[in-house]
C-alpha cells in the first residue's frame, strides 16, 4: 500500500478536544485526543513549531508544550499570544477563548 492509503488527513477537531484559558498575555490551550491511539500522531504533528508557522500572526512569543500521556493530552502555553491580554487586546475575543478552535482547525495525518 502507498502512504496515502495507509493514512488519511483529518481535522484535529474530529480526533481531539480542547479548551483555552488566559492569564495576562499568555494563552494556554489544553488538547486531548478522544482515542489514546491518536496520541502519538498528535504528539508528532501538533508541535510548537507547527503552531508558530500556522498562526504566527497571533502566537507571537514562545510556545511550550507539556505532554500528559496519562491524560492523553497536551498543554500548550503561549506567551505574547493574546494581543496584549484581556485588558489590552482590541480583539472581540480578548481572552482568546476561541484559540482552542484555532488549534482544532489544523489537519493531522492518522493511520487508517
Amino acid at each position, binding site marked *: 500500500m502507498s502512504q496515502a492509503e495507509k493514512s488519511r488527513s483529518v481535522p484535529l477537531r474530529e480526533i481531539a478536544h480542547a479548551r483555552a484559558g488566559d492569564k*495576562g498575555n499568555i494563552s*494556554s490551550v489544553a488538547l486531548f485526543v478522544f482515542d489514546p491511539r491518536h496520541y502519538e500522531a498528535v504528539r508528532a504533528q501538533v508541535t510548537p513549531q507547527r503552531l508558530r508557522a500556522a498562526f504566527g500572526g497571533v502566537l507571537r512569543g514562545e510556545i511550550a508544550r507539556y505532554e500528559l500521556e496519562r491524560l492523553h493530552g497536551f498543554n500548550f502555553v503561549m506567551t505574547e499570544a493574546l494581543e496584549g491580554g484581556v485588558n489590552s487586546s482590541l480583539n472581540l475575543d480578548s481572552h482568546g477563548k476561541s484559540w482552542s478552535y*484555532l488549534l482544532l482547525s489544523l489537519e493531522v495525518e492518522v493511520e487508517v
Partner: protein
Amino acid sequence: MSRPLRIGTGAGFSADRLDPAVDLVARGALDYIVFECLGERTLAFAHRDRLRDPEQGYNKLLETRFRALLPLCADNGTRVITNMGAANPRAAALRTLEVAGALGLKHCKVACVEGDDVTARIDGDTELPELGTTVGKLGQSLVAANAYIGADALLPALAAGADVVIAGRVADPSLFLAPLRHAFGWREDDWQKMGAGTAVGHLLECAAQVTGGYFADPGIKPVENLAYVGFPIAEVAPDGAAVITKLPDTGGCVTLHTVKEQLLYEIHDPARYFTPDVVADFSTTRLSEDGPDRVRVTGAGGRPRPEALKVTLAFDGGSLAEAEVSCAGPGARNRARLAGEIVRERMTHLHGYGGALRIDLIGVSALHGTAVERPVDTEDVRLRAALRSLRDEDAELLLWEVESLLCCGPAGGGGFRGHITPSVVTHSAYLPREQVQTRVEMFEA
C-alpha cells in the same frame, strides 16, 4: 470527620446563574457551597465602584443570591464561602446581615475576611517583574492592588462557626481547600493533601465548566439538556481522593473529557501550579469513571508553597470604544471592507489618531483574523472598529465616524451600534507573605 465532605459550586464567575445553585442547596445535602465570583477585571471594577460609593464594591448579585439561598442553607445546614466581597468584603458582610435579618434568619453568623487589599503597600519602587519595570516607571494611574490570599485566611472564620464567609481576593481553589482543611484537620505543610485539595478546588471553581458547560460541540461533543446544566458537587474523602458529580435530573454531563478539560484550564506547567497554599502537581492525577456522571480524581500532589504572594495591580486603562455596522446581500464583504477603509483613513489622516485601531469583518475574519484569514462565501458581514484610549474624545470620535457611514459610506449599511466602556489594565507584582496580614471579623444577625 471521617465521612466524605460534600462541597458544591454555586457560581463559577461573577455573573453565573442562580437556579443551579438553588437546586444544589435544596437537593445536594451539601456541607458547603462556594461562590467563586472574582476575576482580575471584576475586582478592578469593584474598586472603582467603591471609590464612587464607600458602601459598594462587592458583587452586584450578592443580595439576589443570598435572598434566594440563605433560607435554604439554614434549613439544610450548608455553609457558604465566597469571594463576592471583591473590593469591599466588610460592606458585603454588613449587607448580608441585613438580608439575613430581613429573611428572619436568627443567629446567622457572617464572617468578613480582609487584608488582601495591599494598595497602601505599593509605591513607585514596586517591581513589575513580567514587564521588567517598576510602578513608577510605568507611569500609569494605580486603581488598586490585591494579594492572592490562601485557605489559611479563611480558617479562623470556619473555626468560629461562620455560616457565611465573605472574602475578597482569595485564590479560587483556596475557597475550596479551606473547608477541607477545616473538616479534616489537614496540616498546612501536608503538601500532598494541599495539592489534592487544590485539584478539587480547581475542578470546581468554574462551576458548570466541569459538568458539561463550555464543552458542547454538536456532532462531536454532544451534551444533553445544556439549558439546564447542573453545577458540580465534589465528594471528598479525608485522604483527599474525590468524586466529581452533579445532581440527578440536571442537564450536562461529568465525564473523563469534561474533567480533563477543566483540570488543565488556565494552568501553565501542570506539575507546578502555584497557589498561596501549595505548588500543586496535577501531572500525576489519575481519573477514572465511577458510574454515570461520576469521575474519581486521585493522585494529585504538591510541594512547599511559594514564599511570595502574587499581587494583581489594576491601572486606569482609559476607554474602550467599539462601533459596528452591518452589510448583507451580494457584495456585502467588499462593501464592509470599504467601510472599514474609510474609517481608518478618516481616523488616521483627517483626525490624526495615532494609536492602535482594530478593524474586523465579523463573519469573515474577526476572532481568528489576526492569525489566519480563511476564504468564506458570506453575504452577512458586520464591520467592527475598536480602539482604546486615555482620551475620551478619541473614543467618541470613533463612534461618530462609524455612525456617519450610514449616509456617507458604502451602499446598504445598517444596524449601527456603538458603545464606550471604561477599561483597566492589570499587571502582577509579588510581596513576601509576611507583609500580607489577613484578619477575620464576625457578625451575627
